[in-house]
């Protein structure tokens, strides 16, 4: 087993200085160069798929299929997407035409921020470390990557592989625990992207506040699932069970708990069982059938939550501490509870009406994801309007994190900022405004100079735009309504007119 070698504390400032020097040298300003680095990262994965897969299996019991589908595949996708678009994204942008200021030659340059720090989580060591890293490089930064010490095999492998593919003065892997991370957080960075728990997120944000380092926090929360009986039950159960068992439930956007109308609970649980049985014909503890808890502490935490539940275990419940295995477990008749599960246990909470579920969710911290299984478009609309969450997904779980063009980020305690694709690029980009003011502009703009005569005071308002008419009051609630109301109104007028005529006749 790989013993994770920690980076010596004394080296960390030196590493930061080196990467800063590379940034200041301007080497990363070249977009072709960034594209080269991106491809190197892609080939680092392609050339070492087997070893990376084995490391993930060692650290998390992650089945090779999941390593391909949820780790290596998404990163290659990010490399491809970013490589294809970075030229466009990095181009300076010109704001829309505006007569008054057009001569000022306004432009917004896209620049790197400096040396950026990416602190990765244990659950998806490859995709959650490398996707942000790819964005940071694409935006023209140098990067220190601090992968999790809870995944020693994978983190060691990063430290070994990266220098073979990318100059260590551009990307450096720093391994370590609390002391090393604290040291990193004492320094000033162009940007920090942290993925992990809210508790540590606060520590990172506070340290960043001291150095005025901007942060993006990808945290967690309890992602609820609403089941509306109008859904396709079989598909819903399969997708929910899938979301729950991937990586042994250790996904920040895993469906955490399910809210289902009372009368539908049993039917739903049966469908979950059917899905479970189709997934694990040889049982969930068959070799490579399912991931494991990352360490004994995590196992114990989930185990304890399971023991303490007042609900009824519908199926599952088997555990094995030596292999850190927990079988997919569905617990029904649960009442609402508090901490993020991060394990393959699915509480099912029966309610009188889904309104009750929505009210509960709204009383608590905004989750990273919110799921609803329904074919009722009114209900979908209500979910989108009446709740807040990082993402809101209908009839599916988890996939939103891997889709091109969708931002990945939280709100409130589930996090702030976004990454993935252009959102990631923008996160690591400094938008530098620029003008280039010709001398002749002062023929008009000389009005700005003192002395401030009364004549000048009258003149400035010609430089500035007019406004819409003064509102007579707030728009009425029905002002958005459709044509039908107008038709009714006109009909009413005609009718009233008709009545008036008859009266006067």
């Amino acid at each position, binding site marked *: 087993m790989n013993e994770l070698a920690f980076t010596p504390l004394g080296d960390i400032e030196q590493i930061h200085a080196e990467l800063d020097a590379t940034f200041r040298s301007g080497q990363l300003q070249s977009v072709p160069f960034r594209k080269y680095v991106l491809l190197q990262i892609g080939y680092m994965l392609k050339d070492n798929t087997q070893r990376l897969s084995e490391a993930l299996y060692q650290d998390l019991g992650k089945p090779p299929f999941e390593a391909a589908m949820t780790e290596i595949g998404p990163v290659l996708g990010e490399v491809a997407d970013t490589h294809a678009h970075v030229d466009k994204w990095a181009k300076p942008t010109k*704001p*829309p035409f505006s007569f008054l*200021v057009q001569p000022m030659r306004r432009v917004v340059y896209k620049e790197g921020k400096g040396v950026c720090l990416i602190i990765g989580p244990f659950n998806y060591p490859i995709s959650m470390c490398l996707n942000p890293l790819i964005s940071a490089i694409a935006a023209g930064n140098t990067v220190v990557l601090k992968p999790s010490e809870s995944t020693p095999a994978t983190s060691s492998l990063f430290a070994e592989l990266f220098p073979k593919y990318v100059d260590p003065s551009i990307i450096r892997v720093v391994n370590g625990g609390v002391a090393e991370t604290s040291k990193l957080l004492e320094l000033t960075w162009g940007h920090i992207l942290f993925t992990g728990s809210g508790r540590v997120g606060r520590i990172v944000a506070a340290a960043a506040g001291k150095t*005025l380092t901007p942060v993006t926090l990808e945290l967690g929360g309890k992602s609820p699932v609403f089941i509306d009986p109008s859904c396709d039950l079989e*598909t819903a159960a399969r997708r929910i069970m899938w979301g729950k068992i991937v990586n042994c439930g250790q996904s920040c956007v895993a469906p955490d708990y399910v809210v289902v109308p009372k009368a539908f609970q049993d039917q739903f649980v049966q469908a979950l069982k059917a899905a479970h049985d189709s997934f*694990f014909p040889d049982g969930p503890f068959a070799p490579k059938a399912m991931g494991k808890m990352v360490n004994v502490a995590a196992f114990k935490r989930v185990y304890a939550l399971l023991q303490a539940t007042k609900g009824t275990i519908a199926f599952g419940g088997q555990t094995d501490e030596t292999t850190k295995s927990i079988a997919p477990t569905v617990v029904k008749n649960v009442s609402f509870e508090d901490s993020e599960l991060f394990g393959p246990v699915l509480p099912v909470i029966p309610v009188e009406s889904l309104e009750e579920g929505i009210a509960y969710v709204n009383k608590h911290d905004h989750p990273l994801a919110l799921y609803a299984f329904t074919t009722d478009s009114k209900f979908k609309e209500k979910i989108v309007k009446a709740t807040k969450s990082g993402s809101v997904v*209908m*009839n599916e779980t988890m996939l939103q994190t891997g889709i091109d063009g*969708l931002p990945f980020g939280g709100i409130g305690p589930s996090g702030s900022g976004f990454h993935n694709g252009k959102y990631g690029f923008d996160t690591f980009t400094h938008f530098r405004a620029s003008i280039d003011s010709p001398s002749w502009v002062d023929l008009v703009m000389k009005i700005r100079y*003192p002395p401030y005569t009364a004549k000048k005071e009258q003149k400035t308002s010609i430089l500035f735009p007019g406004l819409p008419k003064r509102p007579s009051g707030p728009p009425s609630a029905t002002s958005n309504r459709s044509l039908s109301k107008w038709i009714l109104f006109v009909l009413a007028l005609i009718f009233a007119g008709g009545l008036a005529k008859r009266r006067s006749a």
Partner: protein
Amino acid sequence: MSPPLVYTPLDEIDSVRDDLDATFRSGRVSSIDYRKYLLTQIAYMLRDNTVAIEDALFSDLGKPKFEVHMLEIDLAITEIAIVLKNLSKWAAPEKLAFSLVWSATRRVVYKQGKGVCLIVGPFNYPISVCVRPIVSAIAAGNTVVFKPSESTPAMSALFAEMFPKYIDPGVLRVVNGGVEVMEKLLDMRWAHLVFTGSTRVGRIVSIAAAKTLTPVTMELGGKSPVLIHPSCDMQIAARRILWGKVLNAGQTCIAPDYVLVPKELQAEFVGALKKAHDEFYPDGPLVPGAMGKMVTVEAFKRVAGLLKATQGTIAFGGDADEVAKAIAPTVVVDVPFDDALMSEEIFGPVLPIISVDTLDEGIEFVNKGEHPLAIYVFAKDEQSKKKVISQTQSGAISMNDVVLHAASHELPLSGIGASGSGALYGKYGFDTFTHFRASMDPPNWLDMVLGIRYPPYTERNIKLSSYFCPSIPSRPPP
């Protein structure tokens, strides 16, 4: 002298936030029409109360009427006009371009408000610098607590009086106070916090916000340098630089702080500055209404102290009147790099001039310090401009003019490093206050393809898993 500012009682602040949160949750501000109405109301609030605003800003800052119009009211109204024009477009859900692979998922990004936002305003441009982020926050569908500066009591009292007449206090509330009120506000969680002020206080705010996981945008300060290149138009340069310096008596976060000029051009440059100065102030700078004043006696003393301690030589200016809190525009030449005037952001109408041998020397000096909010380059030579752009980092970089980039439509106001983080104004401001909510709604039949993801993970599935590993361009040559 204005009456003392009435502070919001500390025990009211929780209920203020609860009110605004309830409004947000009611969904009222998700209506685009309603947001447009609110923004139009703010514009008319400024129009209708122009005289009261002029009086308040004159009382607080000695701000000349002309500056109140050009740099405060008109900038805020322009922002509102731009936002009104674009709001429907910006707020519309982002429907992503057709993709053979992804379109079946019915992916979309909703633009939603984040919740109750806190905007903490500075003393120097109470109208434009406060109202512009307020406009962005409301445009993006949030409710707002606005905390103006206690150093501008007349204006902050006027805000508290004006806003409720135009905007439902359930949507926007003005909270006034000092350190205690700020501490109370910082103890609470906000959907977003915009702070404009000094770097020192920015740190305190950021650390406090971290406790509640409140995302922040910081508009801080720094020493914005001016680099003069021999190829510039000297007269124009001097006039524009002096103009940027005298605005609001130098109390502008993007004021040109100090100048790096080639040795051999120093005398000519100073001469041009003097000429511009005399054109600006035919009756002298300290006549009433000619120029702004320092905001407080403390501010006056701070700047006067820096001037007293300088090792440079005063070329012109230097008059000061503590009672009136007035400092005349003062140019100091032959200032050494480690002078008192170089020890902190001046934020006053004193312009130190440092002579250098080359542009490179100037760039090297600028890079030794913290990233400033702006860098100014006066040059016609394109190579020199490009060199400064690529060899420095700053919030903004402006050629041949100062300050105006913050008034140029739809450019972001953004700091970097110690000068701040995040971006405001126009669409940048709108996006700052927007939660980009990813969504999808894939049909069942998609599992004919995506069904490969389900266990059991057979050999067949593993072979097919290469479907999930997209191809990338060919390997670069070694």
